[in-house]
């Protein structure tokens, strides 16, 4: 049992850690750089928002872990927030005593001004007070009932997103009667004014609250319909999703299309790696190899440049790319059949690098073009229509993703899919069940590789040229991270994961300096808060089978005393 004093000590030390984190992101230059983006004009910018969120987080975690009533929780949040404020203030005090810029280039006067509300060391009490208020707010968030917290959270989140992407939204809402009317209602040319922010917040709040109260009714109503009508509802939902997917690049313009194509390519790779890691439990850190193989196959088969060997059309080359990466998967699997766990990760890591280095090598230059790459990969053409840019290639990506997701779903529910899952759970027992491990492993690598090869094929025509340096280890890591964030073994999770880890950073490109800092932090927070992923695989199953008891605790065989002993 923790003593009360120890518990309060933990609140303070926890708050100080958050304060340290705030000081860290400040010194890393994030606060100042993000401060350029105003979320709500004249009220808050992204840098200050970040600090505020850290304060909220401090209060939230302190209040959530405590025992006791609402007041105790509030006090804990307040204290933790204040401690975070103290942690950040330490930076201010330190900066006034020594010249931090010698060591930390980002410790600029502007930064200190942002942190101290423009008052220097005199701002310390203010910082602590602000921290305490933020912490208390974070604590309040834990105390609110779900019916209030949900809509409030939705309102704040959407407002922030609207403010963050105001430029993009304004472009989308530029033309047309109703669209420009919405724009004029929410935005001013410079961004999101307080009036617009409040409007957005309130609308989302109301909509979310109404939806929350009506959702069970609607769902119940749908479930009471006869099956054909239920299917119709599902079909309508699907059609709506398809319509949105089809219209996105038209509404969003070139930049959005580019981002979406990238998301699509990562989705394809994610689906492939998900098959290997999520379904079959085979860790693979060299996954980019298949992407490269797909890209080079299409590049070499279609290029009109000096390395082109066949001048085929994209449509003829794409199936070949699929088959080549499938075979590459088989060959890739052969030497590592008997390797398990951590060793597998290292072995696959090597494979990814080998492919990249082969493409880069001088010896193979006459065939693969070395570091100069393969140029002049023509765009796909279908009946006179040229898929000339991202906005058009997006549709190829979309169609491929849908197709591949469908194939993955079919495989998951098949005999092979069950064999993969059994192997993931316990390789020895799976073998004893009559599963030929060699076959199913090679199929996992092969099919997973083919999915990535498809992505690579599209990547080749997207860029129109292929360079070895495009296929770095980082891509393998990115793909692995996105399926972890999305939810291992979950197909929708792959899409969600690539939207979050690929789409979002692309949209916030100007902060690319901090991309990996945020990336790392996001992964750590994710593993702490929601290790099963944003869209876990089992959720669907639980929805389908309501009778499954959630609270049943597994009885450990080891814990059962042997009667005979």
């Amino acid at each position, binding site marked *: 049992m923790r003593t009360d004093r120890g518990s309060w000590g933990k609140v303070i030390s926890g708050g100080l850690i958050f304060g340290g984190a705030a000081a860290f992101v400040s010194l890393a230059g994030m606060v100042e750089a993000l401060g350029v983006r105003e979320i709500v004009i004249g009220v808050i910018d992204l840098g200050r928002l970040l600090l505020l969120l850290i304060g909220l987080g401090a209060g939230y975690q302190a209040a959530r872990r405590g025992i006791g009533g609402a007041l105790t929780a509030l006090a804990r949040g307040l204290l933790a927030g204040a401690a975070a404020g103290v942690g950040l203030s330490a930076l201010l005090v330190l900066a006034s005593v020594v010249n931090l810029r010698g060591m930390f280039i980002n410790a600029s006067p502007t930064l200190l001004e942002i942190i101290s509300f423009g008052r220097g060391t005199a701002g310390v009490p203010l910082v602590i007070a602000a921290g305490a208020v933020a912490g208390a707010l974070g604590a309040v968030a834990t105390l609110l009932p779900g019916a209030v917290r949900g809509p409030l959270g939705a309102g704040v989140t959407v407002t922030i997103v609207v403010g963050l992407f105001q430029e993009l939204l304004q472009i989308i809402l530029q033309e047309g009667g109703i669209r420009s009317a919405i724009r004029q209602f929410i935005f001013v040319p410079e961004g999101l004014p307080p009036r617009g922010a409040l409007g957005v917040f309130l609308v989302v709040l109301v909509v979310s609250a109404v939806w929350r109260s009506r959702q069970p009714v609607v769902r119940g109503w749908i479930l009471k319909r006869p099956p054909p009508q239920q299917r119709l509802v599902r079909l309508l939902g699907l059609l709506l999703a398809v319509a949105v997917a089809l219209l996105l690049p038209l509404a969003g313009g070139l930049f959005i299309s580019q981002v979406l194509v990238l998301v699509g390519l990562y989705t394809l790779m994610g689906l492939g790696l998900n098959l290997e890691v999520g379904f079959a439990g085979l860790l693979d850190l060299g996954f980019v190899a298949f992407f490269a193989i797909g890209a080079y196959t299409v590049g070499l088969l279609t290029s009109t440049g000096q390395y082109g060997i066949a001048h085929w059309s994209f449509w003829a080359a794409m199936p070949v790319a699929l088959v080549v990466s499938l075979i590459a998967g088989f060959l890739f699997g052969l030497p590592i059949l008997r390797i398990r766990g951590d060793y597998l990760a290292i072995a696959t890591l090597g494979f990814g690098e080998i492919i990249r280095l082969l493409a880069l090598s001088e010896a193979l230059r006459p065939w693969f073009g070395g570091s100069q790459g393969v140029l002049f990969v023509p765009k796909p053409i279908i009946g006179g229509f040229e898929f000339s840019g991202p906005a058009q290639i997006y549709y190829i990506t979309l169609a491929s993703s849908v197709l591949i997701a469908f*194939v993955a779903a*079919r*495989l998951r*529910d*098949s*005999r*092979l*899919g*069950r*064999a993969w*899952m*059994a192997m993931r*759970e*316990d390789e*020895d*027992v*799976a*073998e*004893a*069940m*009559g*599963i*030929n*491990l060699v076959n199913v492993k090679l*199929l996992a690598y092969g*099919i997973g590789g083919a999915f990535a090869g498809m992505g690579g094929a599209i990547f080749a025509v997207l860029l129109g040229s292929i360079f070895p340096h495009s296929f770095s280890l980082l891509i393998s890591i990115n793909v692995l991270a996105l399926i972890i964030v999305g939810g291992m073994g979950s197909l929708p999770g792959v899409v969600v994961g690539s939207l979050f880890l690929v789409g979002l950073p692309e949209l916030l490109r100007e902060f690319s300096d901090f991309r990996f800092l945020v990336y790392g932090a996001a992964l750590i927070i994710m593993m702490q808060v929601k290790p099963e992923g944003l869209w876990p695989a089992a959720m669907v*199953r639980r929805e389908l*089978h309501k*009778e*499954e*008891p959630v609270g*049943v605790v*597994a*009885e450990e*065989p*080891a814990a*059962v*005393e*042997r*009667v*005979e*002993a």
Partner: protein
Amino acid sequence: MGILTSHQLTKRFGGLIALSQLDLDVAERSIHSIIGPNGAGKTTYFNCVTGFYRAEEGRTFFNGQAIDTLTPDRITHLGTARTYQNIRLFANMTCLENILVGMHPHLKSSWVGAILGTPRTRQDEEQAHTEALRLLQFVGLRGKGDFLARNLPYGEQRRLEIARALASRPKLLLLDEPTAGMNPRESLDTMAFIRRLRDELGITILLIEHNMRVVMGISEIVTVLDFGEKIAEGPPEQIRSDPRVIEAYLGTRRVAGVGA
């Protein structure tokens, strides 16, 4: 010659001899027990038969076919199935899925067929589901098909493991301590259940068991191992009074109920 025969089987781990020139013959449709103190080589023998270990010397035949060099999955395809001393279910899969995995050897649908959703595949899957549900009912787990295996209570996990083994339609079932951790009442149920497997499904049963009441109650033949060697073999009544068996167990001073 019985359904499972081993000749002069020897298995060493470094300097340790786990099985020493073991001769064993399991008659078809019999219930045959292997007993012995801890470390006698009982589970090692199971692992040799199912292909997890390779014996250094000697041969093993299943249904007249040598299986010494086969991989575990091939041996399962021939018609053997086993359970484990410490239950090894696919914990994060549902009960139904566990059984469907067990059916793997006699499902024929290919992965291409699965992608295309061919009528054959569908029919295959439907039949498999029906049979899996029937098996669940047979082991008394009706209606629990969608439960995750890890959420089942201990006794039901044991039964699910047997159902999974049965799903491959084995001719020979190897049970490793099927009543471990059960109370006397549950042990009795399990005994009756094992007898049913033999009588109704015609499956030959080879089991490792520590619970002497179970062993003496259902076995037709008992083989006693000690330090990897067979020290006695015969019907339960004979084994009970065998001086060498009593001697082997003397270290624990208890003949009836040598546990873990």
